[in-house]
């Protein structure tokens, strides 16, 4: 009987471990395309992310239709023609931060994240560099990386070649608080 209680108590403590989760519900994601005729900018403030401090796991999810463009027609075409957001409503990233972050100590750490980036239904293995700032128990992560349209089967017709770049610059800023 003694052993059963020990086993059970040990079992229950393992549930608590690996649960050190930090969440962000309002990550800012910007996309920027620079082409000879036109610069295209869009932004969303509703990216969602979960960061597991113990395992280093970092998950990100953005709903494509939340990207706001200055021109309504651009937003319509982005959703219906290029991203086909009816078929693929979200872009996700599932990865792991290589460095171990100590969330109890304030500081700024450059990090490398390895994982799968799924956009337009096509997943690519990516290694993305970023920065993690810890201040008073709040984690802020920022990153800038390029997404190649061809990598995710996003077809840019030749007619608008001069309006839309082949690689889009992404900027992500996310502020995480501990999940209780």
């Amino acid at each position, binding site marked *: 009987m003694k052993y059963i209680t020990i086993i059970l108590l040990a079992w229950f403590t393992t549930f608590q471990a690996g649960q050190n989760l930090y969440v962000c519900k309002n990550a800012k994601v910007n996309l920027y395309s620079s082409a000879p005729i036109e610069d295209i900018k869009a932004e969303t403030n509703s990216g969602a*992310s979960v960061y597991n401090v113990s395992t280093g796991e970092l998950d990100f999810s953005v709903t494509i239709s939340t990207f706001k463009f200055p021109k309504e027609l651009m937003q*319509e075409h982005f959703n219906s023609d290029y991203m086909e957001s009816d078929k693929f409503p979200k872009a996700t990233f599932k990865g792991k931060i290589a460095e171990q972050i100590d969330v109890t100590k304030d500081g700024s750490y450059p990090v490398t994240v390895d994982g799968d980036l799924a956009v337009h239904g096509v997943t690519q293995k990516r290694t993305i560099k970023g920065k993690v700032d810890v201040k008073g128990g709040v984690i802020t992560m920022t990153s800038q990386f390029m997404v190649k349209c061809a990598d995710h089967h996003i077809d840019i017709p030749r007619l608008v070649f001069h309006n839309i770049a082949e690689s889009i610059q992404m900027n992500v800023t996310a502020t995480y608080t501990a999940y209780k």
Partner: protein
Amino acid sequence: MKKYIILLALFISTDSVMAQDKKAPAKDSNPADSLLNSMSVDNGKDPVNDFKATRLILMQTTKTISKNTLNFMVLHRFGDLAGKNGGGQTDFGLDAIADVYIGFEYGITDNLNVDFGRSTIGKLVSFDLKYALLRENKDGSVPVSLTLFGENGINTYGVYNSFSARLSYLAQAIISRQITKTLSIQVSPGYSSDNTANPFIYGNDLHFFSLGGAAHLRVSKHMSLVADYEHPFSSFRTTANGFHDGVGAGIEIETGGHVFTLNLSNAQAIDPINSLSNTQQSISKGQYRIGFTISRIFDFNHKSTYK
């Protein structure tokens, strides 16, 4: 005592297991996954992507143009393709003009448009207000789109008893629903009121109800097939008196900020005030015609990012 310790351990361990989100995909084995899914924005409340243009052939759609954008439209109906006025002698109707409408639509808000235009038939100058009351959304919580349309037409030339005799009105409730990802259908009950009978024949109804129906089928990313039909409920406007219901079918092509429609219809008139009141063209007599619509959207919202 041991029993209680075991029970306590079980209770504490269940406390740290998170409930699976009902909407989470089946592959969720990770509490972080279900947490992520519950936090991310669902696009269910977004409006459905049904019509590409604010007009099909004979009638208006439930789509309104966005705030601070201007839609410039030119619609054209040629002469009879077949029948005694058609055939090769008139280049299948292309030699003759049945009606031309040139007009503008402006978005006061995303849901309220004001339109202004002029038709050749009746030298009709029309002002419309179009209000999107309901927009069908992706998760079906709003099942239909409902747009209210009110038009006032003025016959600018010709001899009339008074200024008010020149006026005509049309009120329509346009209801649409996306049946499948590619097919949307629409019904438009309406009420017309002409201050002077159109056509000006003794016994003609000045006020009558009407019903229109339309379908829009997305064939490719930029091309759709469209069809519409309208029927005036008027005791005078019978086939025996020479009146026929308006029918149209066509192809709609959307590129960048332009929408082009190429169509065939029996109705000569473009403006529904004219076509509902006075369509006397019969398909069986070959009195149908080629028509087209060109429209271009001008966006006045933010400073252009053109270099």
